[in-house]
């Protein structure tokens, strides 16, 4: 039972990372109708810059800020130079151009930082454990990640649903021409929104860095999972992103722990471990297939 609660928290923490990625990606898709494969590259940029700054003694918060700022800046430059030429193109062109961006960023990163993965430690003041459930000490950093994710999502919800900028964003998502005609500077709004999505990806990158090796290509693994999240949730929907991210985070984490155990019940251990591990890594894709078989446009389908 304690193990289960601990894994539940781990799943939640992974889900929160996915959520930060997914909310940026789904916003960008929802309002700009742009599919951005290079969103994972922004995650990677955040992780690299954050980890490097911290390794050079910037301290955790400055490092975090550096990672987020670097990702946001990269995102805005990307939007200004390339993306705005792609808004009116079809999705195929967007996929291809952003695929080119991935190649560029992955290679650029290995030119600057080398091919060896770099490691990042969680900050000292969060390196301990907290006993939120009696008898089960849980790493404080993971708790902080969960808390940050919830706070940021809350802020995002507030921003999109309660502020004037959020109103423009929602209006732009339903009718781009109309909001332009009403005198809103769309291209500026798009650049800022893109930068905001990039900042979220950078934040996710820095927060995920202590759990995984910071290396070239790290962005694509999470990008594909993010796709699964927003496909399940319904593209363009923040609520869908929340539901999808939690579902995928929990399924993936719990699946990896419990599926091999379950398989042992009726298979010899050697076979069960192999088959269980393989089933666990395929679990989220199976989940996606099942979800789509019933709801082809996601759980929370939006307009269009």
């Amino acid at each position: 039972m304690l193990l289960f609660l601990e894994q539940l928290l781990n799943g939640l923490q992974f889900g929160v990372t996915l959520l930060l990625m997914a909310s940026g990606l789904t916003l960008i898709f929802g309002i700009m109708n742009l599919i951005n494969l290079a969103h994972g590259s922004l995650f990677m940029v955040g992780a690299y810059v954050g980890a490097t700054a911290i390794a050079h003694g910037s301290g955790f918060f400055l490092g975090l800020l550096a990672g987020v700022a670097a990702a946001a800046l990269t995102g805005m430059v990307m939007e200004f130079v390339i993306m705005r030429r792609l808004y009116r193109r079809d999705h195929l062109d967007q996929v291809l151009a952003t695929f080119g961006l991935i190649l560029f960023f992955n290679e650029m990163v290995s030119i600057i930082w080398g091919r060896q993965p770099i490691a990042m430690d969680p900050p000292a003041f969060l390196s301990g454990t907290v006993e939120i459930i009696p008898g089960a000490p849980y790493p404080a950093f993971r708790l902080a990640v969960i808390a940050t994710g919830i706070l940021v999502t809350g802020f995002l919800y507030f921003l999109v649903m309660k502020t004037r900028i959020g109103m423009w964003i929602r209006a732009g998502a339903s009718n781009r021409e109309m909001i332009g005609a009403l005198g809103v500077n769309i291209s500026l709004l798009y650049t800022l929104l893109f930068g905001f999505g990039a900042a979220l990806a950078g934040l996710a990158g820095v927060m995920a860095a202590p759990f995984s090796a910071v290396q070239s290509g790290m962005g694509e693994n999470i990008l594909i999972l993010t796709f699964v999240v927003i496909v399940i949730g319904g593209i363009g929907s923040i609520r869908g992103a929340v539901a999808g991210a939690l579902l995928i985070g929990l399924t993936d984490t719990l699946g990896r722990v419990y599926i091999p155990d379950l398989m042992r019940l009726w298979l010899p251990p050697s076979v069960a471990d192999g088959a269980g591990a393989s089933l666990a890594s395929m679990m989220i894709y199976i989940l996606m297939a099942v979800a789509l078989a019933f709801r082809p446009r996601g759980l929370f389908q939006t307009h269009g």
Partner: protein
Amino acid sequence: MAIFVLLALVPPVAHAFDNAFLITMFNRAVIYAVAAVGLDLIIGFGGMVSFGHAAFFGIGAYTAGILGTHAFDGSDFIFGWTGSNDAFVVWPLAMLVAAFFGLIIGLISLRTSGVYFIMITLAFAQLFYFFFVSLSQYGGADGLSLWDRNVIPGLDLYDRDTFYYLCFAILLAVWFLLSRLVGSRFGRVVIGCKQNERRMRALGYDPLLYKLTAFCISAAIGGLAGALIANHSEFVSPGLLHWSRSGELMVIVILGGLGTLVGPIYGALALFLMEESLVSFTEHWQVILGPVLILVVVFFRGGIVGFLSGAGKTTVKSGGDHG
């Protein structure tokens, strides 16, 4: 059709320059072109942007790899069958298995369209990628060596020229059959579904049926190309199903010219030549390839074929070689 003359001339030219590696390299491009021509059928004509085509490529390759392994050590594969090394058994089977999974993936994915379809096909390819990574019985992440190339009576597939011309003949056949297919009634319906699905339905066609059939044909061709690449490199690994491989196949199609069938052949050659020449220049060649791709997408719509036909039908560097 200058491209076919060019491809036919590769072995003699390579021998003239005493550079047999050229044949190996062009052979790889020819095999990728087979898969890409098949992909063009669904992207270019059917409007189904599959970002998971490497799955079929890999499934075909693993079919050849797994059957070959059992044929080599005589162990039981399934129901007492010890695999096979016969190309006339293995290659059609690779196509059949790929088409079967194409049917399943297509049935689910084609319920959606647009960007959903792109992401779902990508996710399905990941599923198969992880399946083969954890398939420890057949090498898992390390991959599987093919002990013998497949056998065709009367042909020596280990001979560079023979294998090259065989792959070239298959490319010609695939290109020819698909060209006929898109001109046929079936092909017209598929194109019609891309343009206006509702109207096709009103005309009494079932769009899903036609799109699914096209998807399966494309998957089967991908499977065939996979079996060929397994023979070419005598090695099969999950890397063949990596998502970037799917991206590469799409790049080949777009680079060459979408919806032209001959374009992907140009695209495959262009990509591999670019790769080879950049690699000799820097190990970080992708840092150049990436921006080149972006420039192609932004400025050269229509790809190489569009560029060539737009430039007043100038003939392409005919008869020469680039190596």
